[in-house]
């Protein structure tokens, strides 16, 4: 099964500490070598993006930064895993690194399976 991990945080919390970066890099390296991680990427700050939306039947384009932002998406990864349990176990390990190497950080790693066969 293919899964997407989306890491979000409720507010900007500064760049990851070097320790966290190093730990995540090692984890990613291990996951690539284990044949589980297919792709990953970080996203540029929200302020540099744009939103194309439809509200009340009107289509509009809004350039960042936005007045109201509930949560920020920092990055994503795509994994090929056996089942949801494996996906959750991997996400727990990933988030444990944040807890250990960037105290005070708050956020969510959302685990979503790809639709399809």
């Amino acid at each position, binding site marked *: 099964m293919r899964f997407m991990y989306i890491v979000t945080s409720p507010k900007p919390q500064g760049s990851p500490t070097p320790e966290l970066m190093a*730990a995540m890099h*090692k*984890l990613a390296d*291990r996951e*690539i*070598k*284990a*044949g*589980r991680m*297919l*792709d990953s990427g970080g996203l540029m700050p929200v302020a540099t993006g744009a939103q194309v939306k439809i509200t009340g039947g009107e289509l509009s384009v809004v350039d960042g930064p936005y007045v109201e932002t509930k949560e920020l998406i920092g990055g994503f990864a*795509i994994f*090929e895993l*056996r*089942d949801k*349990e*494996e996906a*959750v*176990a*991997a996400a*727990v*390990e990933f988030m*444990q690194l944040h807890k*250990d190497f960037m105290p005070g950080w708050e956020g969510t790693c959302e685990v979503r399976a790809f639709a*399809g*066969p």
Partner: protein
Amino acid sequence: MPALEASLRWKRSAAMTAADAHRAIHHTILAVWRIEQPRLITSLARMLRDVPLAEDLTQEALLAALEHWPVTGVPERPGAWLMATAKRRALDHFRRSRMLERKHEMIARGMEAEQQAMPDFHSDLDDDIGDELLCLIFTACHPCLSGEARAALALRMICGLTTEEIARAFLLPTATIAQRIVRAKRTLSQSGLAYETPRGKELSERLSSVLEVVYLVFNEGYTAARGEDWLRPELCNEALRMGRVLTAIAPNEPEAHGLLALMEFNASRSAARTDAAGEPVLLLDQDRALWDQLQIQRGMRALRRVGELGGTGGAYALQAAIIACHALARTAGDTDWSRIAGLYADLAAVVRSPIVELNRAVAVGMAEGPEAALAIVDRLVPEPALKAYHLLPSVRGDLLHKLGRHEEARVEFEAAAALAGNKREQNLLKRRAAEVTDGARSS
């Protein structure tokens, strides 16, 4: 069940029954174990210089986790817990068997010292197990073992599948797989091949017995029918995973990349290979929008790496390059058949198989027309290896039909129908025989 609740940092829905919760933690433990298992088995194998023994101890650590974690909770560093447990079992093993040889004494002493040292929580991430993993793979896929035994060992030791899961995937009784694994491990132990580390030129030579197993596992999953146990098609993913592992830890072996590309391309068509009723859809008739572009890109990347390593002439690389022609064609009509015909000619020079030659004939037929193709097929008719192969008369019939030689085509299709193994193909060929007869009458 308060202990269970505490054990799961995972919050589960309130509606979950105790039995569900029990199953859930069982699943969670297996998932955690699969993540940790490669490092466990490789570290133990390096320490003990014995892969079969390392495998036993890794399994014992899993059993210990299944026994303890539902009560105590999944520890915060499950990897460290499993490693400590497995090492403790190794010490027990040495004490029990009273092995007083120097080597074993030294290992035991080293492990005791390590046990007393403070565990480093994230040491597992610092530990590059690439070399050990390669050694493990080479031992599990030793040419002295049968293909079947190698496949079972590889799935268990490299992918962390349980014996029961392997049995289900291969549609065999668990006892059969268990026995296969026990025998294979015994063979390795007795022949003194318990820890093999081929290097340099020998590595490349031995690699073929590894790739063969990976491809065998892939094909076992690829031929699985829809609706069968989901673990069967899952074998494709396990093979792909092994392929990705191999290309990551042996990055300079072109055939490993070639096989990975071949598997990625084939797997990319999974969703298009059968229709809603489960009937197979031929490659040229498939809806290309259903092909998995991420997988095709990964296949292309692997194929580019083959080129950088100068390995485009390898058997897997050539097969991958052929499928890449299909993967890159936006419609069936865009297919570069002359390139495919050329690649089949190169492949025929490497593997010398009449079946490859027959495939080349089909490609030549598409590129240059039926006449040129028929000349190749006619040369294959006396081939003993193709005597009972239904696709020879089937291809020949198709070419004759295109040349307007309907009566000869009918004879060929009927011969093909008589040789075809399955009912669905037989019916298709009989239908074609009837069609050419009608065609002959109306012309």
